[in-house]
């Protein structure tokens, strides 16, 4: 099954887990996808190799950026009408709190879906969704 077929199958089934599992880097991070009340949530379970600062200790900021970018891709794939994996044009991450050594969650919202680019607002949180640890604005090339 190629990527386009995997995206189509994921959309039909309403389950993006098989697609996420085909992406090596997401497997390396341990990222998986869940659906809660119809919302897609990316989950990055805590793992020692994600640590960026062992003295705090805190997750590597890059892993949060990666999670936020990934959830933006996922949300666009789930809601747009094209089937190709999106390409990121620009990612802007604001780090609000240090990532603790616990599981991290992320969700995305399409702010605008234009003809050529889509803009998504993403957030990552840990214990409490109302207390985000990082937010991101992600601009994706549509139907690349």
């Amino acid at each position, binding site marked *: 099954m*190629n*990527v386009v077929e995997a995206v189509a199958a994921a959309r039909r089934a309403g389950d993006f887990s098989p697609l996420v599992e*085909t*992406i*090596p*880097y*997401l*497997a*390396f*991070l341990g990222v998986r996808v869940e659906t809660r009340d119809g919302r897609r949530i990316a989950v990055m379970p805590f793992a*020692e*190799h*994600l*640590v*960026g*600062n*062992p*003295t*705090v200790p*805190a*997750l*590597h*900021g*890059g*892993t949060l*950026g*990666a*999670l936020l*970018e*990934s959830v933006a891709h996922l949300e666009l794939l789930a809601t747009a009408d094209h089937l190709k*994996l999106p*390409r*990121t*044009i*620009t*990612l*802007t*991450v*604001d*780090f609000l709190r*240090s990532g603790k050594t616990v599981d991290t969650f992320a969700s995305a919202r399409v702010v605008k879906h234009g003809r050529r680019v889509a803009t998504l607002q993403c957030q990552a949180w840990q214990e409490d969704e109302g207390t985000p640890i990082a937010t991101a604005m992600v601009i994706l090339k549509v139907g690349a």
Partner: protein
Amino acid sequence: MADEIDLEMMNAALRDFVPHNKALGITLVAASYLPASVTVKMPWSPRFVGNPETQVLHGGVITTLLDACAGASVFLRLKEPAKIATLDLRVDFLGRAPAHRDVFARAECYRDTASVAFVRAIAYVDDPEQPFASAAATFALDTRGRAITGEEVRKGLKP
């Protein structure tokens, strides 16, 4: 004249002390105090692929590489040791990420104040004049966590 920088010692801090940098295989290959600049290398690995069909690297691993490189440049700029944390990171993907190639990143911390340091960075394969990604980052100084001193960086820091 700037002090000689011991890359092996700095690698002990950048790579061996930071589990995620170690997992990515990020290694310092060049560094200078004036300008406060570092160049790091990340060897190709199929584990970092974002699109299994094209084999190009995932944007997330490029973001992480740029963040790590940018942070390292801040330490070379500071006169006093400080704890740092990324406040904001913008990455522009200028071209398609490479496949089957080692990737380099270069960062320069070009300004610092009492509380913030400013960095620009690029990621490239062969030619730094032809980057496939560029980044701008701001770092907060004196955040939580034990300070990493320049001496520790030079001697090789152990967690």
